[in-house]
């Protein structure tokens, strides 16, 4: 029980730290943050909508209230009511709506490829460890190391160049063409067609981490006494590999998977930018280009909360699955 309380405590403390960090970042520059932002924005587009200024004030917790503590309380207050301010890029929509539109795209693309990568990577890694120092192992390990050295967004550019532009097999930008978004066959087919290139990049680079991680833990586990004992008892090989070593080696991967699922909420910023895919990652890139601070901060907060929640769930699972974790921490 103490273990679980500690994890929840850590979650709340981190959440507070993240929310506060989000409050501090715009104020790191000397001077009134709102004024500085106005100046930056005015430099870009001369006629600045007063409503936008209001949006900015709302995001910053109304700096006109002067006192930093009051601002902080205002900020916490509006945050707890779910008010994250209005986006400049998609004015007059509020940030939450804009994020809501982009979210499904990222969830489907990144979520699907992440789960496939996890399964494929874990299986390959486990098998490579089991058949250590064979041809299969060296191909898998060397292959992953090689692909791992390629910058993913460059790989994305090359794939887009080859299959989108030179060969012209796939669309070069966007998430769908002329079809109307909704549950109709035309749109779904269109969306899948558009997601093939970005998905292929994520499926090439995705499994690497899982392969190498699983292989390492599995090799470590295969050297443990309980595996030796199982061998001595005459437990069949496949059973040792799957029921003994792989099952235990999977534990660290669960934390990894939870964290990856959480940070998925940040989108694949670079990849989505390359393919102009309408998810959260491209939204982040747009927010950078337009200096859309309310949107940028909300996206950061959104990702952080996602990761923290995922981390909490992983810790809870870990506590249930691995009694050692409970003992070590209490």
């Amino acid at each position, binding site marked *: 029980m103490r273990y679980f309380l500690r994890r929840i405590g850590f979650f709340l403390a981190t959440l507070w730290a993240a929310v506060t*960090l989000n409050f501090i*970042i715009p104020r790191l520059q000397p001077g009134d943050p709102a004024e500085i932002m106005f100046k930056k924005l005015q430099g870009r587009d001369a006629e600045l909508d007063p409503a936008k200024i209001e949006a900015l004030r709302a995001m910053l917790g109304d700096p006109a209230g002067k006192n930093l503590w009051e601002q902080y309380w205002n900020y916490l207050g509006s945050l707890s009511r779910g008010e994250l301010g209005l986006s400049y890029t998609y004015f007059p929509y509020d940030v939450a709506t804009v994020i809501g539109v982009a979210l499904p795209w990222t969830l489907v693309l990144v979520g699907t490829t992440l789960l496939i990568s996890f399964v494929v990577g874990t299986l390959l890694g486990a098998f490579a460890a089991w058949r250590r120092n064979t041809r299969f192992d060296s191909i898998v390990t060397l292959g992953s190391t090689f692909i791992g050295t390629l910058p993913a967004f460059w790989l994305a550019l090359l794939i887009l160049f080859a299959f989108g532009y030179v060969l012209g097999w796939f669309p070069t930008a966007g998430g769908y063409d002329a079809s109307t978004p909704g549950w109709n066959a035309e749109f779904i087919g269109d969306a899948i067609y558009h997601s093939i290139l970005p998905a292929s990049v994520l499926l090439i680079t995705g499994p690497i981490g899982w392969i190498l991680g699983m292989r390492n833990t599995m090799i470590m586990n295969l050297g443990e006494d309980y595996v030796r004992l199982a061998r001595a008892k005459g437990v069949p090989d496949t059973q040792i590999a799957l029921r003994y070593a792989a099952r235990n080696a999977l534990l660290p991967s669960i934390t990894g998977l939870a964290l990856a699922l959480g940070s998925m909420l940040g989108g694949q910023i670079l990849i989505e930018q390359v393919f102009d895919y309408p998810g959260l990652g491209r939204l982040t890139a747009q927010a950078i280009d337009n200096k859309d601070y309310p949107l940028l901060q909300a996206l950061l907060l959104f990702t952080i909360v996602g990761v923290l929640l995922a981390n909490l769930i992983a810790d809870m699972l870990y506590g249930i699955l691995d009694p050692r974790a409970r003992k070590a921490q209490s």
Partner: protein
Amino acid sequence: MSTGVTQPTDSSNLPVGGEELAAAEAEAVEAAGPRWWSIIWANRKARVGIVILGLYILLGVFAPWIAPYEGTRTDFEALLEPSAEHWLGTTTSGGDIASQLIWGTRVSLLVGLFGGLFATIIALVVGMISGYFEGTWIDEVLSFVTNVALVVPILPLIITLMAYTEDRSIWFTIFVIAITSWAGAARAKRSQIITLRNRDFVTAAKFSGDRSWTIVFREIMPSMSSLIMAGFFGAATGAVGAEAGLSFLGLGDTSSVSWGTMLYQANQQGALAQGLWIWLFVPGLALAILITAFTFVNFGIDLLSNPHLREDG
């Protein structure tokens, strides 16, 4: 390394690995001694890595003499084919691709060296102090900070920090990367020092009246130098990848050209649609080769900390 930037989080989910390493390391240190260079050099991959890294360093240091033009010059005729004057041709905006590439080496190496160095220093100070004082309030505080830094997603945080700054220098990039990417290494160092802290040589130092500070940094730290080295190259790899990614998003240094900036411009100015494959290809290739070199050097360093690997060749 999937995107360069997300990598540090990946390596951090191996808390057990740190302790395993620590035990292997302690054996290795006694055996390795001054032979560390010959052990690394004897490995073919590590040798290749060191040679490539050496070439890049030469290219970066002597960029002003090697590159035909300044990397920031954009007053050439646009879209020239490769020729004797412009080895790799020119860009849409009239920049010399070869010169940009050579000057870009300098940016990446600077980011790798100092980003890796600063991240390693933060990780060392936090991890070693926290581990040495395990169980005290100092450790509680430092561990909490480390855990927070570990779970907070790095790339979105860096992006937000960078987006607020108007005039970005290369040093600002390095600073932001370093303060956001030290946590995994700090945790590894903490768990290693916990295994080393009760060894005889530490007890001896305690009895001879050394202060904690001296014990941590003069007695214990040298015995984990290969882990620190591996951590440095890991952090450097991450930093180089992060800089490229940030520059690709248009958040790079505003006064110089890096490989990431080249790819950003190539993408923005329609290099793909116009079939300008050289412009698209060379910066990423340079980046990939540098990261490969870092990885290969790290293979060599792994041999120091884990003698079992040496027999495998």
